[in-house]
């Protein structure tokens, strides 16, 4: 289930999702096994995992990064994201 809003702001306007550093990722897939929201997608080839559905990622959740042995996942700055959400709310960017 993709949530369509977060704190009253349309989810697609909030750029919160993991970024995979492929120089570190060893494709152990722990993050994908953990994430219940279908953010990641496995695929064939050298790059075995991608962030396929970033808008499914729960804003401010960084739980997948805590499963990552090689520390290959990063997220946007929280304070910056909060500021953006407040701005968008003020502009009435709801659903």
């Amino acid at each position, binding site marked *: 289930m993709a949530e369509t809003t977060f704190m009253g702001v349309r989810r697609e306007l909030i750029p919160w999702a993991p970024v995979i550093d492929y120089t570190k990722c060893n494709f152990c897939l722990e993050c994908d096994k953990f994430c*219940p929201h279908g953010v990641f997608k496995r695929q064939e080839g050298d790059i075995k995992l991608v962030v396929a559905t970033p808008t499914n990622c*729960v*804003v*401010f959740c960084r739980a997948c990064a*805590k*499963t990552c042995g090689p*520390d290959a996942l990063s997220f946007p700055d*929280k304070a910056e994201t*909060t500021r953006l*959400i407040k701005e968008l709310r003020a502009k009435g960017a709801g659903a």
Partner: protein
Amino acid sequence: MSEKYAYLPCNGLDKPEGPLSREAALLMLEAAGGELVCPVLLARSQARYAKVLGELPLFAVDGCATRCASRLAADHGLAVARKVQIAEALKAVGASVEGSLVPGPQGLAFVRNLVAGLLAAPTPAAQSETTADFAAPVTYLTLTHDKFIFRVPADGYYFNENDCWVRVSGNRARVGISDFMQQYLSDVIFCTPPDLGATIEQFGEVGTVESSKASFEVVSPVAGRVVAVNQGVADAPELVNEDPYERGWIAELELADFAADRELLLDGPQYLEHLKQKTAEFRG
């Protein structure tokens, strides 16, 4: 740290931090006494360690964020009294041991320093300067989904959409995780409180709650300064499962600007509505 522990290192072989977890456990054992628990043998035969683990608190030494030692403990129903993670500790001082799987002088020196710090640090203790009153009885709303029942306080609590709550009393507030989140995580084995005195932004990390399933970052619903942490959940993490809204609180903050924070929070009935959507796919 005068207390003796049973040390459980992950002893992982495929990353440089794994062998360092073993070094750390051996150094602590040598300096402070206790017992060493081999993760492989524990996985094969818990009975081998029944006596040791019945007598000594467990100290999990994880190499990396995969947390194999902690998760192994959780899988065997063992409470973790203290823990350290080598990768996290390295990151905290801006160091790294990338490269060889054989511990080099740099890695060994790091572990020696880390262990010296752990041995010097007192067992985490309650340092509460609470003056606020959080004793008022709580009445609950409930949401039933399949075989699960999720409780939400009817009033006096506010939530963010990350399943964390805040209860305000004057200029103080307690924070914790919701009943839904504790059930999602299942048996909590360890809580890491935030540092006392730390300044937390709204939606910043205010501790972590770990189960075998996940390490959950507690997302602070409010901004403020940490004035107390709950020793109760440090001693008995299962309190988070048993009583997430009252005895299972994580930290107490002196509020910075609750009126501003409040705008981005849900009250109990609003959170209950939010949960209805969220639980549609919940299978525990």
